[in-house]
């Protein structure tokens, strides 16, 4: 039988033991203005639009289309274009330099109604859809003008590895 963590992972939830692998190096992350990308794409699938959409080459070219994305964090500018392009909505940007000491800004993909607007207080959801925080929407962008929005929301720093979606309440 599967243990609980396997069960969670097998149903689409990135468990803590697997999170390490996708995190940027902390020293760089803490300093990088505008944030760095976190990509939660643990399965080899034939897909590379994240690389195609990256204007700086931070998401490196794929040797094989099924490769898991590799990131040159030095080049990442936190622009969020991959956030809006990834078909799996697996890219997120986390800006640790934003706001007060304990705050961070998360740039999350969003394709549901109602659309959040800047200034809204929204429910912040973890990977299981549980509301773990109420955060303030700072900005909403639509980088590719294709209806996929990137919602910029302020969150407590210690929540950056928990929050993965927002919901208008």
């Amino acid at each position, binding site marked *: *039988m*599967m243990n609980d963590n396997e*069960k969670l992972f*097998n*149903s*689409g*939830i*990135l468990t803590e033991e697997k999170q390490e692998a996708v995190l940027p190096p902390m020293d760089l992350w803490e300093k990088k203005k505008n944030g760095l990308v976190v990509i*939660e*794409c*643990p*399965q*080899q*699938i*034939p*897909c*590379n*639009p994240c690389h*195609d*959409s990256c204007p700086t080459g931070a998401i490196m070219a794929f040797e*094989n*289309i*099924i490769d898991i994305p590799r990131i040159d964090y030095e080049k990442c500018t936190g622009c969020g274009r991959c956030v809006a*392009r*990834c*078909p*799996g*909505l*697996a890219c997120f940007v986390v800006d640790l330099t934003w706001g007060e000491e304990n705050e961070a800004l998360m740039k999350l993909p969003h*394709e*549901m*109604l109602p659309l959040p607007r800047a200034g809204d207080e929204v429910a912040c*959801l*973890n*990977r*299981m*859809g*549980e509301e773990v925080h109420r955060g303030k929407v700072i900005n909403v962008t639509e980088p590719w003008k*294709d209806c*996929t929005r990137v919602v910029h929301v302020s969150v407590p720093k210690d929540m950056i590895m928990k929050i*993965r*979606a927002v*919901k208008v309440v």
Partner: protein
Amino acid sequence: MKTTEILVVGGGPAGLSAAIEAASLGCDVVLMDSDLKLGGQLIKQTHKFFGSREEFAGTRGFEIGNLLFDEVEKYKKEGKLEIFSNTTVTGYYKEDGIVSYTIGEETYDLIKPQRIVMATGAQEKRIAFPNNDLPGVYGAGAVQTLMNVYGVAPGEKVLMIGAGNIGLIVSYQLMQAGVKVAGIVEAMPRIGGYWVHAAKIRRLGVPIYLQHTITEALGDKVIEGAVIQEIDNTFKLVGEPMKIDCDTICMAIGLTPTCELLWSAGCEMKFVPQLCGYVARRDAMMRTSHPDIWVAGDAAGIEEASAAMVEGRIAGLAAAASLKPEGCQMLKEKSTDYLKRLENLRAGETGAKIRCGLEQVCCECWG
């Protein structure tokens, strides 16, 4: 009797691609599709496609459909491509290669093509449980048609059966349409679709019940709920039955190739579980054992639409090149690229099943 150089049966991703390629080589092409609207599954897809730039990765399915329609329009204007929608091909008569079809419910006619590309797609599988016939139990493709093509919600609260890519994607699309998803039931110990598709809906609060099955649909005249229960590794029921509140049950058990015309044509067929049913044996250029018939898309084995489009392009090109000797060079040039793209789409862990299936039905070339 009407004649044409190439008949393409089916106007989904594979059929449209085949028709475009064949027309690009100067062939007269007739494309027939049984639906009211062209585009097959493409026009129902609001999610962005996987793959690479060549397969329009990162573009939404229905928008890819529009791109193909633009190409179709071009060849229609040039008089190379004729489209029959709402037209069901009803028979292939092997003796003289004649195809029968009906337009709508009334008109019946015949056409004699020189070559045929069968891109007939797939149909939904079902599983048995009490009340699985009640209104409110809908196929996943049907749910997509209703809500994404015609703008009609299938219900207010849906239980999804099956966590393959279709079950996961349709769950997400239901939420986009403002429909609640009560949960996704999956018999296997892991989701069958892409992990990222599952993550997308999990973070919106949709439960996925792994190693569960539906044991009963509730309701008298229409669906009023469902009962699900855990199963063990041998698929035996364990645990307690759990009642799920829903008014719709969406069946995303899987698809099986639509292959009646291939059987009628006497194509060599083989049952390949990895391709989800009976499929025609074919060579690398998608030619079946019948020298005038090619196959492409889900009809050749259930796979993603991206692969269907590439297969369609190969089949359309190869069928056309068999009529236009000047097309052979083109076939040689383009097919290398197309085959490489297919190889990419089928790489890795998620493509293992397809690769294993194809090994059983592909031959280098027919004698």
